[in-house]
């Protein structure tokens, strides 16, 4: 961290793009204080910082752990979110963890792979469920094809499959452009009418193995 810039969600997309473009490992830690309101655990962001290597990350966490140990009663820290964006080896991976001063030398993986659509939109939740069931990136058309049975089952009444298809496509496009963890890459293809196809994946499906820690 060279500038005191808090990590904010709208910056997240550009961080992902950066990590993937340069094939780099980077990440951030967000330090949170005690919640200002019971229903909003993330309401008191104290500070955010980036790290650019695994050693950097360990340094930052160790400094904070030492500080919390020295001042156990009044350290003022509630919890921390750790993000890792791993673009090494040409494939993007995303990891998220929770750390609290009590945990000391351990942290808890956050399972983004079980995320739910916060707005509970009908077609978007079908798309999100399909994306989370993937193991790797697939074409956008494949996602829609796989989401169709879900849509038929939940929203099927009285509407043709074509309508569902169009609405699912629309929901997917919206999510690709708004959700930072839904990651897309475009490839040229002679077989596609538009000359390109898009591969899409939800980066939350990868947060099982913390390989970036090694």
């Amino acid at each position: 961290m060279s500038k005191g810039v808090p990590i904010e969600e709208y910056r997240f997309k550009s961080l992902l793009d950066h990590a993937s473009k340069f094939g780099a490992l980077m990440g951030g830690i967000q330090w949170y204080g005690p919640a200002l309101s019971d229903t909003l655990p993330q309401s008191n962001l104290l500070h955010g910082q980036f790290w650019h290597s695994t050693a950097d990350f360990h340094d930052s966490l160790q400094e904070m752990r030492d500080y919390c140990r020295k001042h156990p009663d009044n350290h003022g820290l509630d919890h921390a979110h750790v993000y890792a964006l791993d673009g090494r080896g040409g494939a993007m991976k995303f990891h998220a963890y929770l750390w609290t001063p009590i945990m000391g030398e351990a942290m808890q993986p956050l399972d983004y792979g079980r995320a739910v659509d916060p707005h509970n939109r009908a077609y978007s939740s079908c798309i999100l469920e399909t994306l989370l069931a993937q193991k790797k990136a697939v074409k956008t058309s494949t996602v829609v094809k796989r989401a169709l049975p879900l849509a038929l089952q939940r929203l099927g009444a009285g509407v043709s499959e074509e309508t569902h298809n169009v609405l699912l496509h629309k929901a997917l496009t919206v999510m690709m452009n708004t959700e930072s963890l839904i990651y897309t890459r475009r490839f040229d293809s002679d077989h596609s009418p538009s000359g390109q196809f898009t591969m899409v994946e939800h980066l939350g499906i990868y947060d099982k193995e913390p390989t970036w820690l090694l």
Partner: protein
Amino acid sequence: MATLIPLDLAAFEPKLTHEAQERFDRWRAIYDDMAQHCRQAGDWSWAGELVYKVASVRRMCRKMPQPVSLEHMDMIIELVNEHHRLPVKHNPVVTLTA
């Protein structure tokens, strides 16, 4: 209880000789103190700047022959003091408390 993954913080720690460690601890005491006061005053991002300055010594220690000797530690601290100037902060509360 959710699963926890262990962190090996000690493995990433640069090795220092006893004298170098003492020198480092003596040098960083004031920054730790300032960081603590800043946090108590609610300015966590300024404390982050101070911690970053301390951590830059560690980062340089990793690139030195291990364990880092006192001469190398002096050199590193001199370099950090010279080049890592903390930007001026116009916050009277923090200036008074730190």
